[in-house]
């Protein structure tokens, strides 16, 4: 067994990832986090500050940071960029009027040097609402196809019903794992 193999194996054992969840206010970030963690989502208040959850999933230890999306908090987002493996960008698919805002904030984030290596997962949330835009419409409206600097993927989901949350996170983990923990 080569030395490199041993080192890879050691790294493999840790299998710890840091995910940062951002998006405009009222996008459903906290609801996604709580639903994913199997908690009650009916009593969630607008996030004044941030939430951290550490959970185990598929043998990975995930540190998920959910930072409030209010305008007055967005300037603090940068404090959470360091050593982020994956960025989860949450979009309120029913909020057509702020999609432009949403696009601007995301493209500003992607210029951040400290997020340069992070994988991007876009959750087109609130697909359970009758007025929600499809993930294809969101993808187009936000110009996701122009993103060349990051690995990205958009997934339509509903935090309230839990639909597609798992498949989104699974994609994110696979992409990060392929980069960080070289498979045997």
């Amino acid at each position, binding site marked *: 067994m080569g030395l490199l193999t041993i080192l890879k194996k050691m790294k493999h054992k840790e299998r710890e990832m840091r995910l940062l969840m951002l998006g405009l206010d009222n996008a459903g970030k906290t609801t996604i986090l709580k639903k994913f963690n199997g908690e009650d989502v009916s009593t969630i208040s607008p996030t004044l500050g941030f939430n951290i959850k550490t959970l185990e999933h598929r043998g990975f230890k995930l540190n998920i940071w959910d930072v409030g999306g209010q305008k007055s908090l967005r300037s603090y987002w940068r404090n959470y960029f360091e050593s982020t493996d994956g960025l989860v960008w949450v979009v309120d698919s029913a909020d*057509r009027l702020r999609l432009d805002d949403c696009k601007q904030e995301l493209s500003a984030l992607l210029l951040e040097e400290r997020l340069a290596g992070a994988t991007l997962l876009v959750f087109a949330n609130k697909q359970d609402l009758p007025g929600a835009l499809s993930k294809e419409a969101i993808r187009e409206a936000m110009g996701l196809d122009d993103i060349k600097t990051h690995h990205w993927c958009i997934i339509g989901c509903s935090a309230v019903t839990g639909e597609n949350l798992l498949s989104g996170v699974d994609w994110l983990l696979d992409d990060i794992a392929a980069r960080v923990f070289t498979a045997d």
Partner: protein
Amino acid sequence: MDAQDVNQGNNNNNDDDGGGGGIRIPERLLRREQARQEDAERRRKAKEKQSVTEENSEFFIVAFNRDREAVEELMAACSGSDRDADAQTLDRAAAQTQELQKFLNDSVMFLAQYELRQAQASLQRLQTSLAEKRDEVLPKKKFAFRSRTRAKEPVPDAVGPPPVPGPGPGPATAPDGVKADVTPHAEQCGFSDMAAAVLTKTSEEIDKQDVLLSHLTDCRVRLYGSPCTVHIKHVRGCEILCGPVTGSVFVDHCSDSTLAVACQQLRTHHATATRVYLHVTSRAIVEDCSGVGFAPFTWSYPTLDRDFEASGLDRARNNWDQVDDFNWLAAGTPSPNWAVIAEEDRRTTWDL
């Protein structure tokens, strides 16, 4: 374990045979010898599997040179006749060079210093020649003070993505043609661009829809029913009464208005001189607001009880006076941006 078992068996057999058949043993011995050889073979294979072929400097050199030649071929293929095709080829070459760099980085562990330096140097040469080729085939326009053409100068397609993902100018923003896609669609439940009107929605119309009220002036809105979420944007001088909302109510740019709403969350932005009669089961927040008053939800209509049930809101829990102001984080001192409406000033009749 196996070997030992075999050994014991053999000993036993030996004892059984006594001294009689010294020459007939070989068959058993042969079998044992065969088992031993198979075992050794198995172990050798297992060991081979563990020593990774990729971690071998000969393998590295061969693979590295092969990939490097592939990149050189790509570069040679750029004739300068077809700009777009060349740009694509060069992008591919750049991507492959990047992969080569990664391969080298991954292999640092087992390479000798000399090999590492050699590979590093050849990669350096490759990158230089790639840059030269790019300049030659796709020359950047020379910089000049020409105000009219300057806006068009950075053509991202021609330059291609930066060789190393990192900061730098982001990809071109999409043309603004997507706007049409984003405007409220026909089936959107709600009212937009109205003035001085009385607007109502029945329980059947609302039926778990997401409701949007935008650009209303001096309107009186009644939403009898239980929406899923409500967005209220750019309203002035309005009176908006709304039945129990399952999720959140989002208010942005609202002035001189009266709202009555029951919901799980209320988010209020850019509101001035607005009174909110509220039932909220988690929290209400204000941001960039001033002169917002809060009082308990007192509006009632015939099917309110049924709608409360449909919304799933807890009637017993109302945090209407616990408002978080995102612009006022000082604990202890109350925010100047909102206040509780004094009891004698509260509205008691809601008739149209």
